[in-house]
């Protein structure tokens, strides 16, 4: 049988062993958990950043967005039909003499239409209230920059600046202007973003 000193020694020795074991367990746990926590942290950060949209390419806001959000001004260059609208219509695909489907009801959402000065006449965006109509493009007469009007970069920039806004080239949408078959009073503007606008002589 152990005397009390032996019991004391044994008890304290077992305490040391227990504490050493506990320390070792803690070290192992720490060594295991640290990389796991790092991986989790990186994963969560990655997911967070991905969701925040930091990796997605931001398309610069179009002038219409920047202006309409701040003032009542509208983008005169904006088309009154979306690119999808044209493509999804039952008309033949875009081509030189294709049919362009213009929805008047959609155009009504724009207050200021596009304007082009051509052949001594002003061609302005069609009355948005007009019903849907079908036009057939004829000849290309030039790009937006070849004529005075809202499809000309310099003119558009001046217009913006007159209203107190800055205009950058990245907002500018290239365009091509066509005559309309059998109707000299109309012009068709095809925008590089896929949209198109019908202009009518004043």
């Amino acid at each position, binding site marked *: *049988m152990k005397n009390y000193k032996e019991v004391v020694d044994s008890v304290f020795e077992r305490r040391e062993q227990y504490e050493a074991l506990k320390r070792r367990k803690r070290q192992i746990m720490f060594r295991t958990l640290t990389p796991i926590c790092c991986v989790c942290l990186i994963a969560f950060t990655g997911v967070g950043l991905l969701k925040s949209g930091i990796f997605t390419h931001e398309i610069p806001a179009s002038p219409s967005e920047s202006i309409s959000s701040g003032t009542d001004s509208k983008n005169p260059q904006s088309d009154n039909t979306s690119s999808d609208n044209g493509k999804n219509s039952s008309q033949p695909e875009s081509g030189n003499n294709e049919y362009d489907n213009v929805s008047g009801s959609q155009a009504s959402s724009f207050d200021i239409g596009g304007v082009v000065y051509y052949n001594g006449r002003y061609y302005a965006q069609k009355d948005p209230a007009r019903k849907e109509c079908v036009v057939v493009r004829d000849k290309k007469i030039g790009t937006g920059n070849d004529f005075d009007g809202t499809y000309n970069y310099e003119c558009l920039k001046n217009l913006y600046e007159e209203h107190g806004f800055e205009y950058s080239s990245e907002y500018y949408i290239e365009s091509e202007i066509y005559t309309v078959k059998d109707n000299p009073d109309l012009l068709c503007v095809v925008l590089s973003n896929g949209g198109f606008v019908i202009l009518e002589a004043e």
Partner: protein
Amino acid sequence: MNNGAVSYRRFLEGDDDGFVEIIKDYKDGLMLYLNNYVQNIHIAEDLMEDTFVRIVVKKPHFSGKSSFKTWLYAIGRNIAVDYVRKNAKISEIPAEEASNILRDETDVENEYLRDEHKITVHKTLKKLNSDYSNVLYLIYFENFSIAETAEIIKKSYKQTENLLYRAKQSLKSQLEKEDFVYEEL
């Protein structure tokens, strides 16, 4: 024997000598008490050591609602009950080891109980049911009150009182069989 609570407080404050005093004061009584559960003084010694190790390692809170000894014996009892549960199978002990156990047990009895009468009664306790021997040991050898005994053996006061009554009757009849009269009963 000083107050174990004071020694334990000293130990909790970082003085290991406090715990040395506790071991010195309580080890034999606790061992004999735990022997009632396991009927093997060597195992009882291990369990006694386990009890002290558990206290040293876990440093459980002693609220002071009972005496320190009651609290210590209750911890020891839990450990012994766990041991008995885990080692329910009856194991055979070689005759040589059995005689060692008996000799060591007698040594502890002689050292701890000292009184010849008490030693005889303690030997007789082994022939009783373990519940009877536990309650009798705590009350007549460790001088616990019925309430303290109830707290250690985790029974109600009334149950302990009844158990004690039956244990006394059983011990009396056992002692009578051995032509021994113990006045304290």
